[in-house]
């Protein structure tokens, strides 16, 4: 597993529309996840990008990392902007204006832009059924502005606005379950993905963008700068977070839950938490509490996926097979 980061780049296709030379921090998990996602997205794509790390590090006038049509406007409105682009292409295509057929619209945003300030616009766009893919790159806090807590920050994590103190152990609330919120809109495709499982991530992105109607993918995106961890363990964290059950990989296709990989036993959450400075202060009791919560949530998810898992075993999707290699 440790060598995974070395050999994976040789296996995935070289061509991508996300150019090097951007200004992400060393070891940025989001940049890695974006690269993988856009390897799967091809050329016929328009990107709507929320304000956030990715928007900033890929775009400073007069440079851009995007070799695709790309638009950034504001923080909370990316799903609405994507709605407008999708509707425009629909109308213009119908009315004979010159637009390339089958153009895909992809909205990308961080966890703050998705589960906090952008939730309303996202909910509206999902509910209205626009044909677009929304990818949330979740680095679990407002990392662009310097690591302030969001509703996606995990319980106990110390951030600059959920600091450790005499009366505080860090983040006081449990991570908002954004994929479930997306799934509650009864959209055709919802998935979670992690850059530690690149083929699975790329498969899901390809599937999401090909799905007619709205698709939502929630991508775990480690941030060494904010999480206070070494920059060379991003891929390791991206796998541990799945193996511990903290961030399970699954899909919800037309309401059917399907686990992306079988985990006979979850690794202890401590293996994941101890590697990161943001959790370093947690007591054994708190870790135990987190362990229980993770197990409970994981069991609930397995319960939902019961039907789907049986089906997927029979089908044995190629993405899953490669991941378990």
């Amino acid at each position: 597993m440790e060598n995974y980061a070395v050999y994976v780049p040789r296996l995935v296709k070289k061509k991508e529309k996300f150019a090097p030379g951007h200004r992400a921090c060393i070891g940025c998990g989001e940049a890695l996840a974006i690269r993988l996602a856009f390897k799967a997205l091809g050329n016929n794509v328009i990107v709507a990008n929320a304000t956030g790390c990715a928007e900033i590090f890929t775009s400073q006038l007069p440079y851009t990392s995007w070799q695709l049509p790309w638009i950034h406007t504001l923080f909370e409105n990316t799903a609405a902007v994507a709605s407008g682009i999708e509707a425009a292409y629909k109308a213009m295509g119908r009315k004979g204006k010159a637009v390339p057929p089958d153009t895909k619209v992809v909205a990308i945003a961080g966890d703050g832009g998705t589960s906090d300030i952008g939730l309303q616009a996202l909910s509206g766009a999902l509910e209205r059924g626009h044909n677009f893919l929304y990818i949330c790159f979740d680095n679990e806090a407002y990392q662009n502005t310097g690591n302030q807590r969001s509703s996606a920050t995990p319980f106990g994590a110390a951030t600059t606005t959920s600091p450790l103190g005499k009366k505080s152990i860090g983040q006081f609330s449990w991570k908002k379950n954004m994929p479930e919120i997306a799934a509650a809109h009864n959209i055709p495709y919802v998935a979670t993905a992690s850059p530690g499982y690149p083929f699975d991530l790329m498969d899901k992105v390809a599937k999401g963008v090909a799905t007619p109607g709205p698709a939502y993918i929630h991508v775990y995106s480690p941030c060494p700068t904010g999480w206070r961890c070494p920059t060379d363990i991003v891929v390791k964290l991206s796998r541990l977070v799945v193996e511990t059950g903290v961030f399970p990989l699954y899909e919800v296709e037309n309401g059917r839950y399907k686990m992306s990989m079988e985990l006979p036993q979850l690794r202890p959450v401590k293996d994941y938490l101890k590697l990161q400075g943001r959790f370093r202060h947690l007591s054994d009791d708190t870790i135990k509490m987190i362990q229980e919560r993770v197990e409970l949530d994981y069991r609930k998810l397995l319960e939902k996926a019961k039907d789907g898992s049986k089906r997927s075993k029979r089908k044995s999707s190629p993405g899953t097979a490669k991941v378990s290699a």
Partner: protein
Amino acid sequence: MTQRVGVEVSIAVADAVRMANPDVVAAYPITPQTHIVEHLAELVANGEMDAEYIPVESEHSAMSACLGAAAAGARTFTATASQGLALMNEVLYVASGMRLPIVMVVANRALSAPLSIWCDHSDLMSVRDTGWVQIIVENGQQAVDNTLCAFRIAEDRRVLLPVIVHLDGFNLTHVIEPIVFPEQADIDKFLPVSSYPLPLNPDKPVAMGSFAPPFIFTEAKWAQEVALKNSKGVVLECWSDFSKISGRGYSPVEKYKSDGAKVLLTTMGSIGETASVAIDRMRAAGKDVGLLKLRLWRPFPFDELRVAVKDADVLIVLDRDLSFGGPGGVLASEVKAALYSLERKPKVVGFVGGLGGRDITMDGFEDIVNKGMEIARKGSQHEYEIYGVRE
């Protein structure tokens, strides 16, 4: 020439939008804008207008969807009022900064609190500095004509800026007025199919909305300012071309019996109609008064205003808005600023009135003119007078 028909102004505005053949309409309902967007939804539902109607979940998303649609090259329309306009505020700056030719009709209404659904211009003033071309109309016909003109002005390659047509809520939106619609064939020529110069298109990728470090930000803002200032020429050209197909002309500062008058009243919006009648009555009674009606709010018509007031001794400015803790009405303070550098200039007296839908009658206008003349003669301890307030 087509027939004059009696139609509710909101419906007429929506029909004007239909004639402009937009590709995308994104809107969220708010009183008193609702009849406009309802009728647009109906036109789409009946197949009478070939557009995507996006029933968004807020005004913020309405304008955001317009950003996306316009950036993709679509002809794009929305309408709102009051709180809705306030909610879209940050998006308005982006629309103009990104040079997206969106057209919006604002049914002017007071801003809360206390809640008021009735007309004044506090919403209008709240978007003064957003960088949009802004036209203010005073009757239904002007609303129809200028909605059509707005698309042409916005999409002109020399402009490429979003345009607001302000019309007074209820006083205009909900009244039935005689309207002459232009011929569709004329409009098709007047307003050809839009083609945004560099739309979002995978065949020719562009990056829009990149962030600007200090070395380029000032230049970007200056380019925007130059574009907005220069848009006046295009507005004048558009109005002139429109008059050729409609016989109706417009100018940035519309004059009503103002030439040579020593006392001038200045208004914006629907109250200009009542004021005109009041002016007639005062002139019949021997008063040397005239009226100026501001039609173009942004870019501000400095030259036209200066010429229009050159013979006047007193200029009474009536605002339906209030800049709290400041110089009073926003229009009055801008008029004062515009005239400050002139050698010979009229004394400017500011009034604030008609807030939250309070009517100003003919007697009211006469009262304001008389008080204004009195203040001009004697002076006042106040920056402005608030008309008709019960203290």
